[in-house]
C-alpha cells in the first residue's frame, strides 16, 4: 500500500457520528436501547410523580389545568414505562447478552439496527405527541386531534421497531445456537427472553391493530367510534394491565435465576420444572384477549373465568420459580460471602416484587371487592413495573462489563439506587393498594366523583404514594449517574 493509499484510507475513515449511526454492532445498539429505555423510564417516573402531586388534593386541579391534562400525564406515565421504557431496556439485554449466551452472533444485525432506530424515532414522536397536547385521547376530548394522531403514529413505529427486534432475537435463540445445544440447555435469561418475546410478539401485533383502527377513525371526518378521544385509551389499555404486563416480568425472573446461580456458583436443581414454570408464566401473560373496549353485553372480559383463573394460576407458578431461586440461594449461601453482590440483591428483590405483584393481581379480580377500576390496578402496575426496572438494572450492572467496559463500576452507588427503586416501588404499591380498598379510582381526575368518592384517609396514603414516587425517581437518578460514570470512565480509558 502506498502513502497516497494510506492518506485516502485515513481520509475516508468514518467519523464517530457516522460510526454510531451506521453500526450493526449489537453492543452499540444495546447501548441505544438501554439508554433510551432508561431515559423513558425516568421521564415516566417524572410524569407519575406529577400525577401523584395532583392526587394530594382529589377535589381540585392544582398541578394541572384540567382532568384531560391529568389524564395525558397519567397515560404517558404508563406508556413511557412499558413501550418506551422497560421493553426497550429488556431489548438491550436481549440483543447483547442473549446472543452470547447462545454462543453465536445476533442474527439479522442490519434488521436489528433498523428496529432500534425505528423504535427511537417512534419513541421521539410519541413523546412529542404527548407534549403538544396529544396523547392517547382524553376523557373530555380536550386534546389536539393532530397531536393525538402523531402520538398514535409514534406508538405504531415504536411497536414496529420492538416487533422487528424481537424477531431478530427469537431467530438468534432458535437458529443461532451451535449444533448440539438444545433449548433446554439455554441459560434462563435466553430461555425466558424466548418465551417472553414469543408472547409479546403475539400481543404487540394486536396492539398495533388497535392503534391502526384508532388512527384511521381519528383522521378526516369526526370519529365514528374507535378514534373518539374518549375511546382510544380504553382500546390500548389492556397492554398496561393484567395479564399482559406480566410478560415484562418474565425475562427479569430469568435474569434473577442466572444471577443467583452465577454468584452462588450453584447449579439450579429441578431445572426442567423451572423451565416449564417460566413457560407457563409466559402462557398466562398473554393478554390480547382481555380488551374491555370490546366487551359485549353479559359478563365483562375482566370478570370472565379465563381472566380470573389466569390471575390466580400465575401466583403458584411464580411461587414455584421464586422457590427454585430460594433453593439455589440456600444451597449456595456459603459462596456468597459477607457482602453479596449488588446485582444479586436487586434481582432477588425484583423476584420478590413480582411475587407480591401476582398476589395483588389475584386480589384485584375477586369480584365482590370490585377493585378492577380502583387504584389497586395502579398498585399492581407499580409493583410489576418496579420489579422489572429493578431486574433490568441488575442485568445491566451484572453484564455492564460486556455492554460498556470494565472500568468505573460503582456497586455501592448502584445498590443504593436499587434499594431506592425497590423502596419507592413498595411505598407506591402498598399505598395505592390500600387506597384502592378504600374505593379510590385508578384514574382520579380533578374531582371527588371521578376519584370514586373514596373514604377519608386516602389523602395520607396518596402522600405516602407521592413520597414513594420521589424515592423511585431518586433511585433512577442514581442509576443514571452510575451508568454515566461507568460509560465516561471507559470512554476515557479508550481515548
Amino acid at each position, binding site marked *: 500500500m502506498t502513502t497516497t493509499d494510506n492518506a485516502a484510507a485515513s*481520509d475516508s475513515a468514518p467519523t464517530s457520528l457516522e460510526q454510531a449511526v451506521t453500526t450493526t454492532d449489537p453492543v452499540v445498539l444495546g447501548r441505544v436501547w438501554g439508554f433510551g429505555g432508561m431515559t423513558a423510564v425516568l421521564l415516566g417516573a417524572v410524569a407519575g410523580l406529577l400525577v401523584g402531586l395532583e392526587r394530594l388534593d382529589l377535589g381540585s386541579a392544582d398541578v394541572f389545568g384540567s382532568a384531560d391534562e391529568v389524564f395525558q400525564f397519567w397515560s404517558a406515565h404508563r406508556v413511557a414505562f412499558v413501550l418506551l421504557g422497560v421493553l426497550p431496556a429488556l431489548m438491550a439485554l436481549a440483543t447483547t447478552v442473549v446472543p452470547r449466551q447462545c454462543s453465536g452472533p445476533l442474527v439479522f444485525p442490519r434488521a436489528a439496527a433498523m428496529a432500534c*432506530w*425505528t423504535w427511537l424515532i417512534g419513541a421521539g414522536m410519541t413523546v412529542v405527541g404527548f407534549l403538544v397536547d396529544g396523547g392517547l385521547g382524553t376523557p373530555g376530548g380536550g386534546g389536539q386531534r393532530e397531536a393525538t*394522531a*402523531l402520538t398514535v403514529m409514534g406508538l405504531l*413505529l415504536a411497536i414496529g421497531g420492538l416487533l422487528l427486534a424481537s424477531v431478530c432475537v427469537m431467530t438468534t435463540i432458535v437458529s443461532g445456537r451451535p449444533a448440539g445445544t438444545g433449548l433446554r440447555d439455554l441459560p434462563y435469561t435466553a430461555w425466558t427472553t424466548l418465551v417472553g418475546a414469543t408472547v409479546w410478539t403475539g400481543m404487540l401485533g394486536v396492539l398495533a391493530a388497535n392503534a391502526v383502527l384508532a388512527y384511521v377513525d381519528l383522521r378526516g371526518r369526526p370519529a365514528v367510534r374507535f378514534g373518539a378521544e374518549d375511546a382510544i385509551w380504553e382500546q390500548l389499555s389492556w397492554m398496561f394491565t393484567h395479564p399482559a404486563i406480566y410478560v415484562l416480568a418474565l425475562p427479569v425472573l430469568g435474569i434473577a435465576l442466572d444471577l443467583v446461580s452465577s454468584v452462588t456458583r450453584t447449579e439450579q436443581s429441578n431445572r426442567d420444572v423451572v423451565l416449564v414454570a417460566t413457560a407457563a408464566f409466559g402462557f398466562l401473560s398473554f393478554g390480547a384477549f382481555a380488551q374491555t373496549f370490546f366487551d359485549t353485553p353479559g359478563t365483562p372480559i375482566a370478570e370472565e373465568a379465563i381472566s380470573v383463573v389466569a390471575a390466580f394460576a400465575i401466583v403458584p407458578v411464580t411461587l414455584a420459580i421464586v422457590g427454585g431461586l430460594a433453593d439455589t440461594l440456600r444451597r449456595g449461601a456459603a459462596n456468597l460471602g459477607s457482602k453479596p453482590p449488588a446485582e444479586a440483591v436487586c434481582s432477588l428483590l425484583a423476584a420478590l416484587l413480582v411475587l407480591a405483584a401476582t398476589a395483588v393481581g389475584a386480589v384485584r379480580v375477586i369480584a365482590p371487592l370490585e377493585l378492577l377500576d380502583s387504584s389497586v390496578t395502579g398498585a399492581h402496575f407499580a409493583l410489576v413495573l418496579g420489579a422489572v426496572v429493578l431486574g433490568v438494572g441488575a442485568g445491566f450492572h451484572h453484564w455492564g462489563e460486556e455492554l460498556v467496559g470494565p472500568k468505573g463500576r460503582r456497586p455501592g452507588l448502584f445498590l443504593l439506587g436499587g434499594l431506592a427503586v425497590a423502596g419507592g416501588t413498595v411505598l407506591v404499591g402498598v399505598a395505592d393498594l390500600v387506597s384502592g380498598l378504600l374505593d379510590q379510582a385508578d384514574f382520579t381526575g380533578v374531582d371527588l366523583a371521578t376519584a370514586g368518592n373514596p373514604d377519608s384517609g386516602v389523602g395520607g396514603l396518596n402522600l405516602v404514594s407521592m413520597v414513594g414516587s420521589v424515592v423511585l425517581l431518586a433511585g433512577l437518578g442514581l442509576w443514571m449517574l452510575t451508568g454515566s460514570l461507568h460509560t465516561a470512565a471507559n470512554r476515557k480509558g479508550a481515548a
Partner: protein
Amino acid sequence: MLTTGFKLWFGFFVAVVLAAVFAGYTSGATETGPISLGWKGGVGNHVSYTILVFAAGVLALFGLVALAFRDADAEAQAEVLGLDEAPEAQAAVGNSLWPIFGALGIGSTGVGLVVHPAIFVTGLCIVAAVAVEWTMTNWSEKVSGDPVANAEARENLMRPIEIPVLGTIGVGVLVLAVSRILLASSVTGAVWVATAVGIVIFGLAVLVSKRPDLPRAAVRGILFVGCVAVLVLGIVTAVSGEREFHHKGGGGHHDDAHAEADH
C-alpha cells in the same frame, strides 16, 4: 426419513383437523360436510370450522417446510452445500447506512401521514430507494468469498445509477430551496442574497482548488454545512411564504409582465 419438526407439526395438524370435524358435527353439520370441506353436506358453524381448517393448513405448511429444510439441521446443510461443516448461520456484516435510512424513511412516512402528504411521499421514496440499495448490498455480499470483489461488484452495478439519480435529486432540491429563499426576499434583497451566495460558493471553490491537501473530511464538512444551511433556509422561507406580487393593470389581466412590491 421424517424429521422431528415435521412430526411435531403433523401431530398438531391432525389434532386441529379432528377438532374441525368435531366442531362441525357438534354444530349442525350434515352428511360428510366436515370431512369433505363442505363438498357433500353442511359444515356446521362456518366461523369455527373455517378458522380450524385454515389453522390446519398453516400447520401442514409448517410441517412441509420443516421436512423440506430438514429442520435446518447443520449436517444436512453441509451435505447440500458439499462442505465438511455448515457455514456460520450469520456472516459478519460491517457498518451500513440502510438501517438508519430505512428507519428515517419509515419515520417520514409516519410523520407525513399526520402532517403533510409531501412528507409521506418523500418517506415512501426513501423506503423504496433503501429497499433497492439494501437488496443490492445483500446480493453483492454473496457474489464471492472476497469482500473487496463483492464491494466492487456492487459499485460497478449501482454507481452508474446512484450518481446521476442522487445528483439530479440534489440539484433539484437545492434549486427549489434557493428559489424559495429568493422568492421570500424583497426584489433588491434577492439580488443581494444571490450575489452573496454566489461569492461564498465561488470563494470556497477557489479555496478548495488552491489547497489540494485540504483533508477530505474538511471538504465534506463544508459541503454538509452549506447544504444543510440552504435546506433549512429553504424550508423556513417556504413556510413563511413568498413576497407579494402585484399584476400590472389590476387583477383582470393575465399579463406576463408584473410589478413586485418591495418590502
